[in-house]
């Protein structure tokens, strides 16, 4: 909401960390409130449409609850600062959109390599390049997965409503800390700039997953900063904890020391990828509507899933056996669920509407041999329920 008065409900300067109760708020503001509720300590960011409301909201709210807000000189600095703050133990966060997301890519790889948890929200706008800054896009789906050079594991959430912006931001912080990875929230301009009711629970009901700390005392020399447990995640010691850790973006051994050999590299990169891949069953989150007997399944996320919901409801009213699979984690993709649907064998075709030229459709095509129908818009507008309905009927 551009109007100052419109923010009164969200109480930007409130010293209350969790705004328990019913709010009517923008997706961008709900995301910021989710970060606060999750225990955000440190935000660094650079203004960019359509994510700026996240930063503005935190600029007034975060210092009031004892956190630190820094407006950086650019997105290169923003991402580096939140990784540094994470090294010092902060739950840290930045908000950006396409061009800024591109600028952050190198250090996203650093966060993955150093295994420093952080959360990045990308409120997607129509791209590439400057594109349509104020208008919707969903075209950073593959960039979120593969954007930094090399192989590494990440998680990306995709909210469809302000309520989910709040909830999935909390999940993002917990997942980042649980697996020591950078986690993305891939919002889109429609969800970021729409206001709806958001129900915020009491502080005690906000889930909190802490980082695993060292199990030996500092000074004993026994702590190996990159010796992973069975879950492939190493415990973390922060700057100032007394463990004298060394972290580097270079290939490193369990001590964290550079070890520039092919063997060390292969082992390390496999672990970085596997700690997400092998824990996918615990991470993946999705919702379904009328999928069980469906012969036609729409796979949609973000704002597009809202149109898909309306289309499926209408199709069912017309007697069409149609359902919706809505990934809330777009990475890892709900691959096991799609494979299960294939095993059950009722699904005869998929429809993937998205505001890009087929980024998630590739995933469905990779996993299935079934016809996968497309509904693509390059950005600036979201598909309407009718447009999806026409494909269902076809």
């Amino acid at each position: 909401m551009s109007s100052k008065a419109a923010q009164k409900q969200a109480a930007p300067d409130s010293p209350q960390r969790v705004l328990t109760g019913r709010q009517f708020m923008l997706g961008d503001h709900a995301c910021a409130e989710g970060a606060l509720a999750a225990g955000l300590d440190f935000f660094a960011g650079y203004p960019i449409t359509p994510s700026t409301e996240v930063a503005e909201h935190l600029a007034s709210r975060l210092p009031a609850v004892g956190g630190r807000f820094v407006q950086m000189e650019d997105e290169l600095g923003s991402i580096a600062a939140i990784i540094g703050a994470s090294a010092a133990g902060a739950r840290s966060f930045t908000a950006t959109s396409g061009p800024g997301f591109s600028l952050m890519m190198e250090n996203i790889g650093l966060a993955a390599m150093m295994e420093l948890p952080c959360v990045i929200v990308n409120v997607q706008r129509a791209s590439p390049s400057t594109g349509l800054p104020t208008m919707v896009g969903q075209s950073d789906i593959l960039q979120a997965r593969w954007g930094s050079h090399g192989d590494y594991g990440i998680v990306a959430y995709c909210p469809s409503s302000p309520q989910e912006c709040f909830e999935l931001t909390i999940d993002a912080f917990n997942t980042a800390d649980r697996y020591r990875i950078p986690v993305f929230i891939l919002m889109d301009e429609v969800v970021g700039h729409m206001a709806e009711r958001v129900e915020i629970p009491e502080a005690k009901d906000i889930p909190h997953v802490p980082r695993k700390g060292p199990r030996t005392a500092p000074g004993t020399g026994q702590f190996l900063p990159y010796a992973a447990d069975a879950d492939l995640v190493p415990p973390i010691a922060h700057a100032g904890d007394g463990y004298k850790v060394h972290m580097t973006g270079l290939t490193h051994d369990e001590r964290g020391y550079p070890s520039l050999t092919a063997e060390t590299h292969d082992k390390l990169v496999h672990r970085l990828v596997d700690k997400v891949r092998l824990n996918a069953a615990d991470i993946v989150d999705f919702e379904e509507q009328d999928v069980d007997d469906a012969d036609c399944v729409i796979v949609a996320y973000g704002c597009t899933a809202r149109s898909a919901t309306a289309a499926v409801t209408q199709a069912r009213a017309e007697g069409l056996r149609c359902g919706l699979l809505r990934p809330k984690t777009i990475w890892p993709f709900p691959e096991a669920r799609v494979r299960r649907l294939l095993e059950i064998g009722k699904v005869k075709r998929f429809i993937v509407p998205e505001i890009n030229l087929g980024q998630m459709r590739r995933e469905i095509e990779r996993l299935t041999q079934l016809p996968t129908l497309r509904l693509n818009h390059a950005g600036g507008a979201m598909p309407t329920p009718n447009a999806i309905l026409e494909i269902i009927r076809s």
Partner: protein
Amino acid sequence: MSTPQPNDFSVVHPIDHLMRADRLPHILCAGCGIGTVIHAYVRAIDESGTDPDQHVCVSGIGCSGRAAGYVNVDSYHSTHGRALPFALGIAVHNPSLTVTVISGDGDLMAIGGNHFIHAARRNVNLNVICINNFNYGMTGGQVGPTTPIGAKGTTAPQGSIEHPFNLPYLAKACGASFVARWTILHVRQFTDAILRSMDKDGFCFTEVLSPCPTSFGRRNKLGEGLDEVEMYRERCHIENGAENLQDLDIDIVDHEQPITVGNFVDIERTAFHA
């Protein structure tokens, strides 16, 4: 205490606990000045009497960027150009830590130049040591933002035609609270400058001129590392509090030109604490 004998390996070096001895031997070339800078840094930690656990060292990429890997404090070897914002995140989140950035002229002033001017402008509580060896040593001797006019590099085989940065002048103009320039010859003064930086709230910047015989020295007829240090001995003149920082460009070609070193700026200016 008796004088240690050359073959007595039971004697521990006084700064041994501040070095990651298990990482030696290091990657630095013979005659390189980076080791001297690392030594001065840990010596300053030791002399400060502060708890090493409260010290953090952050570096970027390049030979100088490897400094963080050898010091036995919490240390972070970040990405090229991003040491300063990475360090900002640590320092702002936990203001009780003493955060020192050690990196090179290319890392801090070319690819990281934007962060440098803004960190100094904000007056973030960081100690920044810029090891200036006038070139990109790690990648084999390309010219960079501090390469003097006329000096040669692999990317300027006929000599650089660009004006270099005058780093103390730049740092002062951007708002740094403390600004110094020394060379690795001036170990004592340089260590004191680091000590002063550790004690001071705000953005503290020290440029330290350092030989890179392998990539820069031999190409520019500066001889071995020791020869370059000898050149510093001959040409440097100390002028603490020098006002005319704009005149303190470094001329590496004309050996008649003096090189002015000293602690130039030490002012009180509100430090950034978000």
